[in-house]
């Protein structure tokens, strides 16, 4: 008969401020959060038009923004899953680099030219998935904190990429591959189509499947999820594997866009992806996540860079603005969370 028992007995239910419920329901809902992001994006576009005029509002420029957003966007969608599931992955940039290098070695390219250019695609996907599996196993079964396990992967994967490529940029010379990814579907570049597909599939999986539901459960309260009969460790491995596959896809897109594989690809992707996910409204502590928010997060950052570049502002100024946006977004998020009585 513990005293804790009595303590819980007397703790009682949390009181909810009824007056605030109407407002908070709107602001706290996914729609409310995304409204904020849409407003931010529109504001950015207005600034873009005002400062750079035709150069910003040009169709080619918009496609450039989208093409740039696509690669990091795919990684961010995967990252949304891992963070919603209560994890973090710092190794995404390194995995992208390793996948891009492995998929463009002379041997792989020779095979691709002999057989089919899809060899490159499968190579990148396999490498990404492999790295993800290793991350997942280390975290779920090796019980290494995600931060540390993926930090180790960050170092190791980029190192391995340097060894394989001998620190040289590997130029892709597989005509079928380049042609496919350079194409457009109804005027929309294939890269953007891929990002859109990944985002839609990601949304469906997160919100409409048992896998997605379990992700929320595992991230929200792993102990309760375990006692409800969910195999939390297996699910954790699957989450990191999924992100690894996303990194593989991103690597393919990056290789196609730059026609190179390089150990320097994907630099700081981990920070960009985490930032996009967090300003999108996904809770860094897990249990709450939104794919739509992540997509907006990615678009906001990419548009910001574009506007700055068109105005001849330095990369450094962009970095400062990015930092400010992250802080403001997270502060707003916290206030919304508090108002919704969580």
């Amino acid at each position, binding site marked *: 008969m513990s*005293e804790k028992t009595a303590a819980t007995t007397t703790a009682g239910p*949390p009181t909810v401020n009824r007056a605030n419920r109407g407002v908070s329901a709107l602001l706290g809902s996914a729609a409310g959060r995304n409204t904020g992001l849409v407003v931010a994006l529109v504001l950015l576009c207005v600034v873009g038009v005002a400062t750079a005029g035709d150069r910003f509002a040009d169709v080619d420029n918009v496609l450039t923004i989208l093409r740039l957003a696509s690669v990091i966007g795919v990684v961010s969608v995967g990252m949304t899953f891992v963070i919603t599931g209560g994890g973090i992955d710092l190794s995404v940039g390194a995995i992208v680099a390793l996948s891009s290098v492995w998929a463009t070695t002379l041997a792989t390219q020779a095979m691709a030219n002999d057989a089919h250019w899809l060899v490159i695609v499968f190579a990148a996907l396999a490498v990404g998935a492999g790295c993800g599996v290793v991350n997942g196993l280390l975290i779920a079964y090796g019980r290494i904190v995600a931060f540390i396990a993926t930090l180790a992967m960050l170092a190791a994967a980029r190192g391995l990429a340097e060894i394989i490529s001998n620190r040289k940029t590997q130029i892709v010379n597989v005509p079928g591959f380049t042609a496919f990814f350079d194409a457009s579907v109804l005027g929309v570049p294939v890269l953007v189509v891929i990002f859109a597909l990944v985002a839609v599939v990601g949304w469906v999986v997160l919100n409409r499947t048992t896998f997605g*539901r379990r992700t929320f459960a595992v991230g929200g309260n792993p102990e*309760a999820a375990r006692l409800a009969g969910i195999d939390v460790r297996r699910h954790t491995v699957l989450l990191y594997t999924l992100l690894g596959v996303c990194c593989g896809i991103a690597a393919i897109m990056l290789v196609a866009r730059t026609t190179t594989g390089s150990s320097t690809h994907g630099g700081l992707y981990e920070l960009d992806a985490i930032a996009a996910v967090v300003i999108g409204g996904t809770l860094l502590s897990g249990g709450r996540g939104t794919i739509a928010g992540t997509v907006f997060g990615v678009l906001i950052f990419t548009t910001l860079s574009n506007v700055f570049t068109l105005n001849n502002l330095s990369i450094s100024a962009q970095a400062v603005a990015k930092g400010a946006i992250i802080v403001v977004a997270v502060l707003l998020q916290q206030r919304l969370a508090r108002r919704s009585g969580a």
Partner: protein
Amino acid sequence: MTTTTAPLLSVRGVVKRFPGVTALGGVDFDVRAGEVHCLLGQNGAGKSTLIKVLSGAHRPDDGEIRWQGEVVSFDNPTAAMRSGVAAIYQELDLVAGLSVADNVFLGHELSTAGFTRRAEVHRRTRALLDRLGHPDIPPDRDVGRLSAANQQIVSMARALSRDGRLLIMDEPSAVLDQDEVRTLFRVIRELTAQGVAIVYISHRMEEIREIGDRVTVLKDGRTVATGLPARETRTADLIRLMTGRDVAYDFPPREPFDPTAPEVLVVRGLAAGGRFSGVDLTVRAGEVVGLAGLVGSGRSEILEAVYGARKPTAGTVEVDGRRLRRGSVGAAVRAGVGLCPEERKSQGLLLDQSVYRNITVSTLSAFSRFGFLDNGAERARSRELTTALDVRPTGVDRAVRTLSGGNQQKVVLARWLLRECRVLLLDEPTRGVDVGARSEIYELIRDLSARGVAVVVVSSEVEEVLGLADRVLVVREGRVVHEGPAQELDEHRVLDLVMEGTAA
């Protein structure tokens, strides 16, 4: 103790209410300098709330606390400590990773211009440890590496470092072995000889006899007797004072249970290293078996092991004649076992997620096709269940966090109702649940057993075990010490089995 001493602490008519519950409904007692005053009461009697009020963690809603004759109000634990009142909680509030000395002076570090005076801190810590009869504890040792007993000493040193005049000890012997308890008692005697007063909480009668001076009994948040002589008052009298309840629980009428029903859950020789051993348990379809015992007796651990959440070191668990894989929750759930865990909030629920998601989390495959969930069906089934269980407020999209304890428990029960499980394990099913919702939960448990579910109930409240169960197992120190039909037992007998003879 001479009876002429003015009380150090005097509590009059203290009331503490929480939303939906009155935790303390009028507590009176005095503590004199240099005495060991024992607080006795069943679970939920309000002991821990009282401690929190006395130590400044909670503010009372009504009543008066006098400290050395003057009315005081401790707004926070620091204020209480400054006056000389310190609580030593069951779960010790020490910071592992910091040294003994750092822990003792945590929050009132000795410093000059921001620099800690290490030598002084060590010297004073050593002096305090000496005073507590433990010069063997090195002040620079990491607290996390000390034994539970020594950690308790450090906690006491911390209280004394603030010039503590009254120490409140919450079941201090629960984590100690016999020798350590003896040392603790020696320390307590030395402190009381120096005029320090102790409020001592324990369930172990023989300890109260040995160390206590006077006893105050709490029941349902009120003082029912105070100032009883600890050595002379008969155990039977104390137990009667503790149990004679005002709050009547409504136990729905018991359907006669069919003793020839098939055995659903069969546990043989279950053991888990040091926590419990040799547990045999058979539950038939439609039977409710109660496990009674103190916290730490191993009852919750037994449930966890049956459920696979804790890996047993020996023994087998069979459901409907099929043996379950050891230590696999998945296997247990697939075989139709459900658990409502003890810590509902931390182990049972996804607090920020909606009611329906909490209900369907164990049955997702029933609502999915090729992995795609049918949200409409999930909501519809959840709505049926919450209506049947009268979960209020209604609305399956509401976050579980916004529900009261009783309604949260109904959500957990709904999860297993939905799964139509064969065996339901309930760990403290009415903890934190108000009286009204309690009877609803009791009725629900009866309902389930009437439908042929095998139910195992663990509860600290003896009345609950007796009211619900067909058969009762009493667990003490990891062993089943009694097994028999509930009708043959009464509260006194069970409390005797649970408490008396618990080796100190």
